[in-house]
C-alpha cells in the first residue's frame, strides 16, 4: 500500500460521500490486511493504545462482531455498547450519549442505528471520527465496501460490471449504499423486486427497475440477493412469503439462463429458501462466506485509514 494514501473524509457516513479514489484506497488497504487474519497469531500492533467504541442500537451479529474483530486484530481496545444497555433507555438523547462517550476520548465511534441519518447527526456534534455501521434505510457503507472487495477479487475489476439487486429495495440500506458506490465505480445497477418493495423515484438515481427476476438477472455479472424481512407481510407490502418466494426466490432454474461466471452475494442474515434456494446459497457461485471474511479486512482498513498510519507498518 502507498504510505501517502488518505481518505477525503474523516467520517464514513455513506458511500455517497466517497470518491472512487477513496474506494480504491480502502479496497487496496483491505486487500493488504487480509493476510493477517490467516495467521496463527492474528494480531498486529498497528492501533495499540487506540480505543474504538461500537455503539449498536440495533441487533447485529455479523457487523458488530466484524468491527470488533477488526479492531482487535489491529490491537485497538474495542468497547461494545448495545442500545438496550445504553442511557438512551433512560431518556438520554442520542447527541448526549455520543458526547458523553466522546468525553472518554475514544478514537473512533462506530454506530448502528435504526433511524436514517443518526450517524450524520452525531458527526455534527462530536469531533471523533464516526463510522456508520448501518442507519435505518439510508446507508451501510462497510457492507458495500466488503461487497465491492469480494466482487473485485473474483472479477479483477469493477468498472463496467452489471449488478442485479434482488429483493426489498425500499427498506434496504445495503441497496442504497451499493447503488451509490457501484455507480461511482462505473458499474450498472438494476433493482429487481415486487413494486411494493421498490422505492418511489429510484429510476431517477439512474437505476433500472425490473419486476421479473429471470429478466432482471439475465445479463448480470453479479446478483445481490437481499434478505426479506418477515414483518413486511403485515405491512401490506407482501401478500405472503410463499408468494414472494414463488416470484423472487433465486433458484438453480433461474441460474440455468445466466453465465457460469455470475457471482451471487447476500449481505445476510439469510432466510434460507425464501429469497435464495439452499442449493444456490451453497453452490459454487455463492460468495456469501467470502463476504463475511472480507468484512473484517474492510473494517480493519477503515480503522487504519481513519486513524492514520501512525506508528507501525501492518506488515
Amino acid at each position, binding site marked *: 500500500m502507498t504510505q501517502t494514501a488518505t481518505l477525503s473524509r474523516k467520517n464514513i457516513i455513506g458511500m455517497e460521500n466517497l470518491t472512487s479514489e477513496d474506494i480504491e484506497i480502502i479496497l487496496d488497504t483491505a486487500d493488504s490486511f487480509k493476510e493477517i487474519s490467516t495467521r496463527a497469531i492474528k494480531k498486529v500492533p498497528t492501533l495499540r493504545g487506540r480505543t474504538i467504541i461500537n455503539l449498536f442500537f440495533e441487533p447485529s451479529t455479523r457487523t458488530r462482531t466484524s468491527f470488533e474483530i477488526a479492531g482487535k486484530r489491529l490491537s485497538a481496545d474495542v468497547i461494545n455498547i448495545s442500545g438496550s444497555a445504553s442511557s438512551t433507555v433512560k431518556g438520554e438523547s442520542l447527541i448526549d450519549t455520543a458526547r458523553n462517550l466522546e468525553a472518554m476520548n475514544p478514537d473512533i465511534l462506530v454506530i448502528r442505528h435504526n433511524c436514517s441519518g443518526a450517524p450524520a447527526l452525531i458527526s455534527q456534534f462530536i469531533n471523533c471520527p464516526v463510522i456508520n455501521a448501518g442507519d435505518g434505510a439510508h446507508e451501510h457503507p462497510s457492507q458495500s465496501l466488503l461487497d465491492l472487495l469480494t466482487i473485485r477479487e473474483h472479477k479483477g475489476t469493477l468498472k463496467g460490471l452489471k449488478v442485479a439487486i434482488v429483493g426489498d429495495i425500499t427498506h434496504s440500506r445495503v441497496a442504497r449504499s451499493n447503488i451509490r458506490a457501484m455507480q461511482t465505480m462505473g458499474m450498472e445497477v438494476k433493482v429487481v423486486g415486487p413494486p411494493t418493495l421498490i422505492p418511489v*423515484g429510484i429510476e431517477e438515481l439512474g437505476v433500472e427497475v425490473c419486476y421479473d427476476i429471470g429478466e432482471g438477472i439475465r445479463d448480470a455479472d453479479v446478483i445481490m440477493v437481499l434478505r426479506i424481512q418477515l414483518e413486511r407481510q403485515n405491512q401490506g407490502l407482501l401478500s405472503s412469503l410463499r408468494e414472494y418466494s414463488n416470484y423472487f426466490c433465486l433458484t438453480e432454474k433461474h441460474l440455468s439462463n445466466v453465465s457460469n461466471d455470475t457471482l451471487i452475494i447476500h449481505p445476510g442474515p439469510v432466510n434460507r429458501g425464501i429469497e435464495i434456494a439452499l442449493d444456490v446459497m451453497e453452490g459454487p457461485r455463492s460468495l456469501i462466506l467470502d463476504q463475511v471474511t472480507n468484512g473484517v479486512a474492510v473494517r480493519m482498513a477503515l480503522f487504519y485509514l481513519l486513524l492514520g498510519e501512525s506508528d507501525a507498518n501492518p506488515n
Partner: protein
Amino acid sequence: MRTLIKNGHLIDPANKRNGNFDLLLSEGKVEAVEPKGKIKEAPGLELIDAKGLVVTPGFCDMHVHFREPGHEYKETIETGSQSAAAGGFTTVAVMPNTSPVNDNRSITELILSQAQQTAIVNILPIGAITKGLKGETLSDMGELKEAGCIGYSDDGRPVSDSEIMRRALEYSKMFDLPCIQHSEVLELTRGGSMNEGVVSTELGLKGMPTEAEDIMVHRDICLLPKTGGKLHVAHISSGGSVDLVRQAKAKGLPVTCEVAPHHFILTDEACRGYDTNAKMSPPLRTNSDLEMIKEGMKDGTIDIIATDHAPHDLVDKQVEFSKACFGIVGLETALPLTLKMVDEKVISLERAIEMLTSQPNKIFGLDKGSLEVGRVADIAIFDENKKYSIDPSKFKSRSKNSPFKDWKVRGKILRTLVNGKTVYKSH
C-alpha cells in the same frame, strides 16, 4: 393620546387604498385617513414618520401554535404574541392542540385570560372539532363560539372519520364558523417524516405522499354541497389539492384555503443532510407542487397566507430526523418570504398584503384588517427594501427552529401597533 403616521405608503386593500396617505389615530382607532400632508400636525400629537416605508393594516395569521397551556417550554401566549408583533402580525388564531386540548369553554377562557394578561397582540382561539382531537365525538361548538372561538379545527390531526367530518360541517353551519381541516389520510402517511419522492428514497426516510392530502381535500369538498358547512383547507402543500380547491370554487362551493410561506419557498430538497428544521407537516413537496401553489396564489385559488407557526425546542428538533417534531417558527419570517413571491412576480405587493390582512378577516368574519375610519388601529409599518440576513437567534419566539437561517432577504418590520399603541419597534 393621538398619533399621526405621516409620509408613508399606505396599502389597505380592504379600502382599495394604495398610495401616499397619512393616518391619524385616536383612542386606539383610526380617526382620519387623508392624502399626504392634509392632516395638520398639532402639539401633543405623537408623530411617526413613515417616509419611504409601507404602512398596512396589521397582519393576521389564522394558523399559529402558541403551546399554552401544556408546552410552555416551546412557546407561551406571551412569547408567541411578541413573535407575532415582531413579524407585523396584530391578530393570530391559536390552534387547539394544546395540552389540555381547547375543546371546551374552560380552556378557551384560560387562553383568553392569559392573552388578556400577557399578550401584546390579539389572540383568537380556535376550538377543536372533536373532543380531545380524537376524531370521535364533536366538541360543544356552540359553547366554544360563545367563549370566543372563531373557527374549529383538529389541526395536527385530520378528522379521519368521514361521518364525523360530515356532521362537523353540518353542525358548524349553525354557528356560521368554518371547519379548518389538516388534510391528511393517515393510512398513507403512517411513520412518514417527509414528502415521498426521490429525496425520501435517497435519504431512506419513510415518505408521505401528496395523495394523502389530495384524497382528504377531495373528500371534504364532496361533503360540502349537502352539508352547507364552510371548509377552510389548512396549509395546502400539494399541487393536486390546489387544483381540487380551484374546481370546487368554480362550482361555487364554500371552500377557502391557506398556504404557509415554507410551502411556496422550499422543496423536499431542504431535508437533505437530515435538517430537522425542514421537517414539516404537511411536508415540503417538490418543484412541480411549488409551481402549482404559485399558480394558485396568482389566480386567487389560494386565499390567504398563514404561517403554521410551530415553535419547537432543541430537545424536539436536535434529534434523529424521524423522531423530530414537525414545524418551524413562522411569524418572524413571513413578510420577507412573502416578498419573494412579489419579486418573482407571482403576486403584487398589494395582493400580498391582502392575503395577510383583509382576506383572512373576511373569511373568518372578523372586524380587523382594515384601516377605514372608525376601525381599530392595528397597523404594521415596514421597510420593503431593507436587506438583511435572517438570524433565528434574534427571534422573539421562545423557539428558534427555522430553515431560513442566514437567508438573505428584503423587507423588515419596523413597527407594529395594536389598538393604536406601539407594541413592537425594531432597533
